[in-house]
């Protein structure tokens, strides 16, 4: 009789442990766009407990050559240590491959407030040659914008210009 509640209790404590770990790791800011967290971006995939009681955080790179990947892993490790988790491991998972669809609506809001146009909700066809996406100006809200460059300072962004208020701005590309 006593075994069942025990198991429940153990399960519950495991869950709260995982939740606490998630909260700590989720708050890690993206090194290049610190207004959004790695949870907002969908880079933090999961937090689990393995058989030895080790917290395993799974992160995924946005693209293969992302220079922030190492730093993000290190920051997650530090955040978990700081939250009191000692036995911690960070794993990189490649599959399924990250897409901008994983950016949360909260993340999109923060990007827009920071002046970066968030990706449009569904990926456009990449096979379309010379294809351009319609992007709304994060500064004045006008739809009258044009693309200056397919790449901005970081590979995940394109540079646009607003024809109404003339603001240059980054667009977080669909991917």
């Amino acid at each position, binding site marked *: 009789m006593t075994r069942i509640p025990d198991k429940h209790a153990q399960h519950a404590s495991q869950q709260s442990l995982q939740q606490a770990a998630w909260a700590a790791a989720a708050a890690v800011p993206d090194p290049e766009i610190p207004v959004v967290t790695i949870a907002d971006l969908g880079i933090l995939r999961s937090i689990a407990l393995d058989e030895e009681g080790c917290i395993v955080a799974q992160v995924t790179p946005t693209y293969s050559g992302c*220079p922030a990947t190492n730093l993000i892993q290190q920051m997650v490790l530090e955040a978990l240590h700081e939250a009191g988790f000692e036995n911690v491991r960070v794993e990189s998972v490649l599959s399924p491959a990250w897409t901008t669809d994983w950016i949360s609506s909260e993340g999109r809001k923060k990007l827009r407030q*920071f002046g970066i146009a968030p990706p449009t909700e569904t990926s456009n066809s990449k096979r379309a040659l010379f294809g351009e996406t319609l992007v709304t100006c994060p500064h004045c809200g006008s739809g009258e914008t044009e693309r200056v460059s397919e790449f*901005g300072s970081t590979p995940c962004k394109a540079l646009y210009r607003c024809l109404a208020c003339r603001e240059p701005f980054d667009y977080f590309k669909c991917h």
Partner: protein
Amino acid sequence: MYSQGLIGADGQTHEDAAFLAAFQARIDAEQKIEPNDPMPEGYRKTLVRQISQHAHSEIIGMQPEGNWISRAPSLRRKAALLAKVQDEGGHGLYLYSAAETLGVSREEMTEQLLSGAAKYSSIFNYPALTWADIGAIGWLVDGAAIMNQIVLCRCSYGPYARAMIRICKEESFHQRQGYEIMIALCNGSKEQKELAQDALNRFWWPSLMMFGPPEGDSVHSNQSMIWKIKRFSNDDLRDKFINASVPQAEKLGLTIPDSDLKWNEAKQGYDHGEIDWDEFWRVVKGDGICNRERLKNRRRVDRDGAWVREAAMAHAQKRRARMASARIAAE
């Protein structure tokens, strides 16, 4: 660094007193000036000069670091350096676009750079000789850039201020990576640590010069201050930079190459030795070891790429014509 862009700036302006007073009132009320707002010609010119020279600095700055991409010592460092240089190019592009909001075209600005009429930050006329220089540049040069840019985030011109807020975050990432290269060297072998010290020795003084000479009562600089394009004096920013960098050097176990560097308890900051302003002016005026090479490279790249740009334009024109005739045929 970008206040170097104000050297020789013509802040003169010809509007009537009422217009200038109304404009100044907006500035004093900390209202941002936007592209479609009326503004004094002197304000516009000063900004074009500063923003374009900032953009040129990003572009020329790709050369010393690009020089090490093929030789980076590990795959991780190679990827990070490649990404960093791409960032700098992106900053240049962003800033050219910000300057374009003031009615100047990228072509005009490029022309001014290639002809030597426009300047870029003096620091990029120093060569990146060893791998440790890539660390020192990230740590010190990006660090000095951040000192300038944090203040520029509050610049009175809206598009420039907002550009700075975003660019600043990326520069912080660069600085962090540069410092991390220095940490790896200083935790490494004796020869690695010597490389690090040597890089610091060569980049320390030029980094201090990035903030520009002491201004005294310079009129131009005052006008930029009144318009809140500039918000701190060159010396103030330089002091902030020194105060931030000295403890970082100590943490690395490196020695700042300035025997006069001393903590001043009264001002809660460091006093530093004499900066060689003759060297600064020599490099600004074109006699640094790399000045000619940096510009010649840009001119060569511009020449070599001309046929590609012409082809792209010709194709775009043909495409438009074909689409137009297809539409007519459809109607």
